[in-house]
């Protein structure tokens, strides 16, 4: 097992005929993901890449193919509509890759998903991968390897960096989730930790945080109370000047709240090992796995 996606996940791609959606649909197929359908309003009845049927609506795609996850690449002005369509079609998992979605729109579809008990990942995220089984999103498959380390992160490329270092150190991953850097997201650290905690394959968790907000502090609280698997954290942004936005909308330090030091303190108090440099992550994971198996 892994969490959220595996060999049985049947993916539909909303916006499959667009440039980004098309490119990443091909990448997913090449990785081995079961991409069963595409949806682009007005392009129904065509085939994508000669084999994937395209539908006008999510409902038709689900009825015809049994898709059980959607990944959204449609442009920001239309993303709320697309996400609500997926949630209303009762897809259990909707992964929103699109960036620059207005916060109000994200709030609308995320709160709707919560009410209906459906999971949204993102928006503005790289998606997720269960190495060797399935990837839904834009993560580069080559840096990952199947294994027992769960990874959850607010960042994209930093996740690849740390996964790359884990893989090089012989530490494969169960599932790697990029939750996105926007202010309002569907799945947070705590949700991911809860799933990794229950997953039988996952034996250790790496949490990659960054400055801003208090998601890391909430994760620390949760870990203290619920998580018995070893957790290693890395937090980016110790050099960020207060008040400046460092790429991600959420990555702003205001006052003493949201600093790397404050987050590291909370983690340490919860028994989480905090890596100061990315290359320390695999070392800490390896030693904590040794301890738990001894």
């Amino acid at each position: 097992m892994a969490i959220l996606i595996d060999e049985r996940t049947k993916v539909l791609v909303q916006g499959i005929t667009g440039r980004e959606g098309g490119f990443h649909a091909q990448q997913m197929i090449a990785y081995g993901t079961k991409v069963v359908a595409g949806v682009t309003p007005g392009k129904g009845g065509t085939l994508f890449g000669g084999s994937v049927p395209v539908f006008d609506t999510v409902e038709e795609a689900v009825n015809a193919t049994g898709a059980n996850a959607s990944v959204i690449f449609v442009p920001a002005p239309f993303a709320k509509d697309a996400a609500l369509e997926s949630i209303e079609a009762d897809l259990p998992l909707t992964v929103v890759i699109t960036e620059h979605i207005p916060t109000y729109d994200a709030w609308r579809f995320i709160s709707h998903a919560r009410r209906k008990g459906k999971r949204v990942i993102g928006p503005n995220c790289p998606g997720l991968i269960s190495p060797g089984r399935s990837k839904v999103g834009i993560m580069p498959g080559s840096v990952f390897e199947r294994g027992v380390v769960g990874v959850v992160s607010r960042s994209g490329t930093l996740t690849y960096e740390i996964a790359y270092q884990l893989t090089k150190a012989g530490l494969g991953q169960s599932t790697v989730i990029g939750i996105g850097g926007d202010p309002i997201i569907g799945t947070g650290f705590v949700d991911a930790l809860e799933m990794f905690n229950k997953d039988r394959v996952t034996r250790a968790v790496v949490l990659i945080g960054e400055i801003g907000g208090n998601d890391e502090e909430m994760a620390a609280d949760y870990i203290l109370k619920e998580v018995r698997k070893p957790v290693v954290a890395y937090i980016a942004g110790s050099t960020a000047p207060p008040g400046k936005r460092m790429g991600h909308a959420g990555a702003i330090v205001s006052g003493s709240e949201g600093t790397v030091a404050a987050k590291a303190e909370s983690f340490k108090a919860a028994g989480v090992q905090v890596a100061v440099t990315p290359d320390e992550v695999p070392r800490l994971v390896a030693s904590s796995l040794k301890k738990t198996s001894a």
Partner: protein
Amino acid sequence: MKLFEHEVKEIFRANGIAVPPGRVVSDPAGAVVAYEWLHVPSVVIKSQVLVGGRGKAGGIRFAASAGEAAEVTRNLMGFNIKGEIVKSVLVEPRLDISKELYLGITWDRSARAPVIVASASGGINIEDVAHENPEAIKKIHVDPDLGFEPFVGRELAAKVGIPREHSQIFAEITGHMYALFVRYDAELVESNPLALTGDGKLIAADARLNILDDALFRQKEFGAKASDRLSELPPLERKAKQLGVQYVELDGSVGIIGNGAGLTMATLDLVKYYGGEPANFLDAGGGSSEESFLRALGVLAENPKVKLIFVNILAGITRCDDVAKAIVKAKTELGLNKPLVIRLAGTNESEGRKILSENGMSAYSAMEEAAKEAVRVARAGEASA
């Protein structure tokens, strides 16, 4: 995008939130006209800048005659407030304030909803209040099904302890503010202070409204203003914004380019950890192409503070050969002659390395090694300078 106080007050005024009468002027003669038009003995003259903390920085002053208003305006025009130059001032009557409140609406990440925040301790930095006296801050989250209903405002008034005779109008202001928050795709709508005056009125003595940049596509009336506002940024940050790369200027000498915000942030941290001082944050983008890298290199090539450039790429969607090509072009076409420390790993790594070696360059594969080298080169440069 941040709006100027006078722009926000216009919006407030048109939407049922009382604000003081006022005139925006940009020279002493204008201040005299404004003073006489207001017809009050004492006025407040407020620098129109987008940075916070202008009061502490001396950007808000008082005048008790037309001559004094002119003098104060003359002094404020061109005044530098935290790097921002004052180009206009707002002249308003000096209010007789009996109590300063705080009222604001923003997004709460952890609750994943808008949060309405109010406090009876207004007029000072609300983050300081939150830190020192958290009980003085009252919050209500907006329910996604209900939206805002008047009872929410009354509840908030009761929590904050607004006197009964003012609670109805406080609730109404809260509702108007929430409507603006939604209509303008705001990151923040705020009045600090929301002033209770001696004659029993609630007036937004200060007003802020930040529009989410991502929503400018549908906030069309602000689209044009957004590009004007670019002139408020430092020159290289403005250039970067026009080029579509994420750039923040810092004080050090090590120029940094990464792909993706998180990796770039981690690169800065690593340089600092090994004893170097980053000159900037520059995210060329998670899926950057050869062109976007060339543009990113161009931005740093122009910055005289940058003594060397550390390029840290873990290529996923980005391709190492594109990055290598951009580096070669930056040297040949842009005349980039600053020392380079390069880290390349991931997609098409060997192709990228081949291009570099054909042009007499090489790359590290681990970011830690590369960061150490970047710091060493920066220090050697300083020692020889």
